[in-house]
């Protein structure tokens, strides 16, 4: 187990002297999401002591003064208004069979975004909001939307908006399959991939606040809270699926299919470790 700084190494050496930390973890480490989440938050709050916990959801804007000022101004008249309006219109418009999205979701789909993803114990898999929306469509005889295009982005933008301010409340039931899904998501997050050999952590754990080319990197803590995001780069609103797949191709890794197991598990992990932080979506990003 490698640790980051000399002081951490020293204290770890003292406290873990009894444990065989030099040996590789061959036996299954006990999966402990509660401990992970605590360590995750501590890592980022230690690294950025001046940033309030709830402000981590603003990604690069909490990492850079100049960006923060521009963002504050933009929030007065946000660029995502058109997509948000479209999302609201789509959400309330009935399907051909007369039903609406309201019929598929608890509380008519209002103010529930913070509960996604969840682990479906009947199916034994992670269900994300995007997946749930397309399932709703298919259950009502409508064709599914592309996970990386405007329509899905607009719908999830509207649902996120109705949950603004509500803290992430991801649950991991006491089911080994749920714990494994969480763990797989965690493993994906830290696994290096692509010809550039980056993991999600390379940018969002090792380098938040620093630049990759012209962009300021966001911290992993709170990174899902602003989804979906209107990106200036995209000149429009983009889904979580779009972000995951484009991140992969940017590091020269062939993306998997949107909403493949790995991505859903990843979203599960990343959302869980940000539990308690408020939903800020839809967000605007450079």
């Amino acid at each position, binding site marked *: 187990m490698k640790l980051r700084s000399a002081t951490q190494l020293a204290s770890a050496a003292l406290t873990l002297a009894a444990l065989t930390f030099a040996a590789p973890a061959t036996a299954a480490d006990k999966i402990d999401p509660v401990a992970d989440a605590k360590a995750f938050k501590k890592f980022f709050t230690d690294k950025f002591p001046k940033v309030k916990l709830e402000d981590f959801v603003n990604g690069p804007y909490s990492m850079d003064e100049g960006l923060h000022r521009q963002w504050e*101004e*933009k929030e*007065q*008249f946000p*660029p995502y*208004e*058109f997509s948000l*309006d479209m999302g609201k219109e789509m959400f309330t418009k009935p399907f051909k069979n007369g039903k609406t999205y309201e019929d598929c979701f608890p509380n008519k789909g209002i103010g529930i975004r913070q509960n996604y993803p969840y682990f479906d114990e009947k199916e034994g898999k992670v269900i994300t909001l995007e997946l749930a929306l397309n399932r709703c469509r298919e259950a009502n005889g409508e064709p599914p939307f592309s996970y990386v295009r405007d329509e899905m982005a607009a719908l999830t933008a509207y649902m996120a908006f109705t949950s603004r301010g509500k803290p992430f409340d991801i649950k991991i039931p006491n089911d080994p399959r749920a714990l494994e899904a969480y763990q797989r998501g965690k493993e994906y997050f830290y696994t290096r991939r692509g010809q550039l050999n980056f993991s999600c952590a390379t940018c969002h754990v090792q380098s938040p606040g620093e630049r990759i080319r012209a962009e300021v990197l966001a911290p992993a803590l709170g990174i899902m809270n602003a989804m979906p995001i209107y990106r*200036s780069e995209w*000149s*429009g609103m983009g889904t979580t699926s779009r972000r995951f797949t484009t991140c992969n191709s940017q590091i020269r890794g062939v993306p998997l299919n949107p909403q493949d197991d790995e991505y859903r598990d990843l979203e599960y992990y990343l959302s869980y470790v940000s539990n308690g932080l408020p939903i800020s979506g839809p967000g605007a990003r450079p």
Partner: protein
Amino acid sequence: MASTIRVRAIARGDTTEVQALIQHPMDSGYIKDAKGEIIPPHFIQQLTFEYDGKNVFLADWGGGISKDPYIKFAFKGGKKGDDLKISWLDNKGATDTTTAKIQ
């Protein structure tokens, strides 16, 4: 049909601050689509903000302005409750106009 123009004008002292967000593809005519074909130019060429019969802001735009443009400026004058008229004209001859009350 909903207007493509969102505007907020706030009178502060002897100036009025205006922000506007306009829905428009603003295609420059230089970008190719997924099939490799040029997306034809389609952008706002003229944008005007009119107050009390006079233009307080006039923009002559080209294809370099991004999609869904955002504008922010301030002009001297303007009182709460007065009208501010915004219009645009694009290269295809389409227009839209809206009138907002200064807050």
